């Protein structure tokens, strides 16, 4: 079992819809949870990070972590065609001696 599981999609939704992207993880040591956006032929761009369980909101984006079920979510409200990209979830224990563990990424398409 991979440490972080993510459905690769593609996920296609109409413009203006609410998008829900999800990951599950297996390692209880993970304490920080990140979402990255990656456009084609670009490096991953950090959208937001969350520590432990709870919600975090930034504009149209909301990240949610449920450590009891090891479930990570990203919600995008009022989706725009410019949101079309691959979204990668990532986790880290935060101890300073390891890198990020990524999911495979979900390819999101927002139809105009």
């Amino acid at each position, binding site marked *: 079992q991979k440490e972080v599981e993510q459905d690769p999609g593609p996920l296609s939704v109409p413009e203006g819809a609410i998008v829900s992207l999800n990951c599950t993880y297996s390692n209880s040591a993970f304490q920080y949870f990140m979402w990255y956006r990656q456009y084609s032929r670009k490096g991953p761009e950090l959208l937001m990070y969350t520590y432990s369980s709870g919600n975090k909101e930034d504009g149209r984006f909301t990240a949610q972590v449920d450590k009891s079920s090891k479930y990570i979510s990203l919600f995008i409200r009022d989706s725009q065609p410019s949101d079309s990209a691959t979204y990668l979830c990532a986790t880290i224990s935060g101890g300073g001696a390891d*890198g990020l563990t990524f999911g495979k990424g979900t390819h999101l398409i927002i139809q105009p």
Partner: protein
Amino acid sequence: EAGVAQSPRYKIIEKRQSVAFWCNPISGHATLYWYQQILGQGPKLLIQFQNNGVVDDSQLPKDRFSAERLKGVDSTLKIQPAKLEDSAVYLCASSPEGGDYEQYFGPGTRLTVT
């Protein structure tokens, strides 16, 4: 604030040749990472530096890959000799002191081995 810089952006080599990638992290960031991203996969950590010391290189194929970070700033990643399965995007990232959850990535170097 300037982001993470990487060069070259693209490289095509034949198998058994050698190649080197360069990275300049965000100014002041103590920690530097090299990741390998194979098509359709998430990035995988190869090596992590704290200043100019190696923190984790457990997933670096040391028989062919090497990396260094001189003076705790720029870093180079080398592959010698390259194999077909090394075709991937090599990403460099950096994070501030104590902020390994806040990693910022460069644009990557796309390597094709033929």
